[in-house]
């Protein structure tokens, strides 16, 4: 788990936001992945991009994480239905 201060320095996201951001679908805390510059929700295996210091925490922008590194874009999400088949 990357500490809040590390996220702050690397992406420009404010401390306030880091403390209250959660995954929009699972409401679980997010983890910052430096390599892909995105926020990962481990609970459901989705990564949300950070563009220019602004995190895009919308289901539409989330990408399913496929095993290790390859990510598959998830355009079919228009509601949370596809994520709820667990």
């Amino acid at each position, binding site marked *: 788990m990357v500490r809040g201060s590390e996220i702050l320095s690397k992406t420009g*996201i*404010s401390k*306030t*936001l880091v*403390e*209250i*951001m*959660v*995954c*929009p*679908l*699972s*409401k679980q*805390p997010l983890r910052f992945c430096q390599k892909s510059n995105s926020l990962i929700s481990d609970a459901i295996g989705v990564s949300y991009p950070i*563009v*220019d*210091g*602004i*995190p*895009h*925490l*919308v*289901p*539409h*922008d989330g990408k399913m994480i496929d095993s290790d590194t390859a990510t598959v874009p998830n355009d079919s999400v*228009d*509601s*949370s*239905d596809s994520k*709820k088949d667990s």
Partner: protein
Amino acid sequence: MLRKGGALLLRRPFCSSSDGFSGPSQSKVKIFDRNLKRKQRDRAAWLMSPKDTLVDTVAENILDRLEDCKKTFPTALCFGGSSGAIRRLLRGRGAIEKLIMMDTSYDMLKSCQATKYDDSIETSYIVGDEEFLPIKESSVDLVISCLGLHWTNDLPGAMIQSRLALKPDGLFLAAIMGGETLKELRIACTIAQMEREGGISPRVSPLAQVRDAGNLLTRAGFTLPGVDMDEYTVRYKSALDLIEHLRAMGETNALVQRHKILKRETALATAAVYESMFAAEDGTIPATYQIIYMTGWREHSSQQQPKRRGSATVSFQDLQKQFGSNTSSH
């Protein structure tokens, strides 16, 4: 689906799940195309004028309510339609120290970020959807939504998630467009379409009625709910100016059932009908905007509670004796 003695009974959900997310989505009716709304807001970010009378009036009205409370709101979340106007007109009300601006449109946020503000409020930006709120429970003191929630598919769900994001004794302030909004446009569109195309497609969104707003607040679990309504009439030089204004506010049609083609004839006919039916003597046309303001609080032990049934110590008869029998009794 339940099977009962050979017949299939459809399990009918009566309300969506209270925490807004977990469990299968039960009554997910798609009225609005949220992706299209996002793109429209991207465009509005470019078309927006820095000073829009209608939007500014609504924002001022909402922010005035902050001065009515003794409470201060160090952390605030602001999302939806005119969050730019809220940010601009804040002027220290509510003693907000940290503000989080949320919008589905990245361009809107960028234009907010680019504007210079006089105050020193720490502002953070996040792209998020009201229906899938990416905010931790009990983390903000204040949630403001100015003219945004009337584009959600699941308004109760969005309000429930807003309530959960609030700390106990946190305030929820929202302004949405009400049912009377753009009634002249609705009428003109219907008449013109019937004449030209022989049928009608929805042009104006279904909007909440004032009587529903109170129910929405209680259903979302807010305590001490308050609803009030204001009607504004804006005058435009022509029907096309009205449409331009709607585009600049990001309030254009995003209904899933919308007819994607608008014939030039129909458009001109609509403008003509509008002008002939509603024009004033000076040639300007009015458009009604009915704004419903909703306030609600997250429950807290310090708030007044109704007393337990049967705990009354004074009867109505005593009250009547006290205040005199010459007053009519209802």
